[in-house]
């Protein structure tokens, strides 16, 4: 048994961390969302007006809906890329497994900004992709919708978050005892039946964790829309950014942030609940 003093001493750093970096900022954010701006000055006048604006102005709902659609698309796309990749690495690769695993993970070490600018270079009017299409005579003038569109945002975010989706799925697949797969075959199930009836259900916690990563991280992203999104690709985080910056309406920005926080936390709880439903052992 450890002494009472020791226990309270070791609990100080985590408590400090949680207090200074989580509780305090969230409290400040929530407090700001209940204040107001009058004639360019923030006044500490408690009210719910910011939340009323949030729900009455259709602009915000529209951007939020678009953000959800983009985040949803990113989730689906990165699952469609990440799951087969994880499956291949977990079950098919023999000798070069470690190397291929590293190849998947290595992009995570490259700066997010660098990857964003890379996509700009690829998708732009005189970018690599348009140049290539014109070289092949598939198009005669640059295709405009590649860059500065929701498509570009989805593409870039999918590229960035696929490794995040891959990792938990790969871990889940690696943890499936191989005799279970043999038992399934032994009982007469073809490869497809084994996948649907054994592998997919048992990798569900990993899949849910990956999907949550992709959705939640995309939901709060503001760099991708800033770099490749254009006006039609604006997401909710960009709105928050402009409210805190040029528009100088911190209270409204804080109110939107609180809204995103509530959505995110509910999603995390939902995901955790579902993961528990699918966890067996």
């Amino acid at each position: 048994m450890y002494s009472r003093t020791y226990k309270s001493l070791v609990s100080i750093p985590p408590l400090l961390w949680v207090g200074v970096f989580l509780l305090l900022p969230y409290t400040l954010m929530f407090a700001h969302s209940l204040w107001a701006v009058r004639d360019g000055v923030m006044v500490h006048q408690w009210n719910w007006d910011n939340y009323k604006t949030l729900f009455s102005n259709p602009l915000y709902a529209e951007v939020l809906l678009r953000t959800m659609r983009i985040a949803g698309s990113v989730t689906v796309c990165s699952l469609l890329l990440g799951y087969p990749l994880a499956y291949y690495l977990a079950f098919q690769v023999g000798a070069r497994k470690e190397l291929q695993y590293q190849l998947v993970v290595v992009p995570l070490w490259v700066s997010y900004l660098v990857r964003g600018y890379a996509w700009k270079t690829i998708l732009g009017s005189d970018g690599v992709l348009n140049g290539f299409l014109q070289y092949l005579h598939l198009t005669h003038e640059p295709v405009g919708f590649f860059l500065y569109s929701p498509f570009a945002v989805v593409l870039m975010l999918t590229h960035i978050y696929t490794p995040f989706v891959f990792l938990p799925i790969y871990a889940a697949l690696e943890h499936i005892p191989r005799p279970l797969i043999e038992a399934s075959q032994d009982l007469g199930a073809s490869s497809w039946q084994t996948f649907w009836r054994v592998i997919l259900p048992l990798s569900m916690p990993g899949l849910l964790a990956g999907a949550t990563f992709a959705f939640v991280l995309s939901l709060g992203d503001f760099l991708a829309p800033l770099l490749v999104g254009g006006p039609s690709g604006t997401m909710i985080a960009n709105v928050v950014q402009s409210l805190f910056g040029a528009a100088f309406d911190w209270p409204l920005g804080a109110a939107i942030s609180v809204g995103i926080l509530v959505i995110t936390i509910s999603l995390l709880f939902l995901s955790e609940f579902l993961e528990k439903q699918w966890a067996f052992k």
Partner: protein
Amino acid sequence: MSASPANPPLQNSAKGALLLELRNVGKRFGATDVLKNISLNIASGEFLTLLGESGSGKTTLLRLIAGFERPSSGEIWMGGRRLDCQPPYKRPVNTVFQNYALFPHLNARDNVAYGLRVKSTPASEITGRVEEALSMVKMRGFAASRPSQLSGGQQQRIALARTLVNHPQLLLLDEPLSALDANLRKQMQSELKALQRQIGITFLFVTHDQEEAMALSDRIALLRDGALEQVASPREVYARPATAYTAQFIGQTNLLRGEVRGCMATCGALRWPVDEADGPVIFSLRPEAIRLAADGKRQTNEVKFRGAIRQQLYGGSSELLEVDCGNDQTLRIRIPACGPLTGEHDFVFSMSDAIRVQE
């Protein structure tokens, strides 16, 4: 997909007819020959045990038959069809795995129904057959339990029911009892044997436990370093071991090394007439074949010798003696419990109990 006989009727071939045939089967992993030129026939309705130490290749042989591995050479035939070219899910064979390999996301009933579901059996038929299989292993009351809620022995029963429900022609069992504690193990042994008699399915059973092999099997196939050492009934393997290895692996024995010259065998201090050609020989003499000599008289076919007792191990109904017969020769002797013994005594054994074995 070819029309595989997924649900053949029970006992579709006459008992005793040839069911599975291994023809010169070999398996090589890298530079290692795990199985060397195995030829073995299994009859319908038989309980055959593959016995061997770990690393002898017994599990590999089972996996070749189940289809999880491909033989490097040779062929496997079953009921007139070549088996080794088919994927595991097309073979009329089921496996009980060492650690059961029950699906953790399915309850006991769904685990048992799995094989029927993947073969698109009508739902009405599934219900009946699952109930039948569950009652066969006395687990009807646990149909709704998840594997994690069941004890080792109960999981074992579900694993068994999951295979039996498919009416396989051949059931492969990979050390199915090794994870159970001693008492449960004994109980499951006798239930398994009774079940096999009752339903008449051919069992190919893998174990490293020679007592288990002796108790359950119709025949034992003893594997040593990937080759078959001897294939015979438990009684024959025990009474007439072909090799020194078999004699030592199955039960305890004394190996008497010596030579024959002029129809006389000499092994250390022991000499007796034999009908063998001249040359070096090994005899296997079981400890219980030797007994204390009764007041000097002996039959003509008995060998008598004198030895000093070095060690006496009491075993309840019997005593195990270690006796020094001179010439650096120590024999182990099992006699009925008789109280403490010391000093030198006369012992006898019947010449016919000394079995000539190969190296």
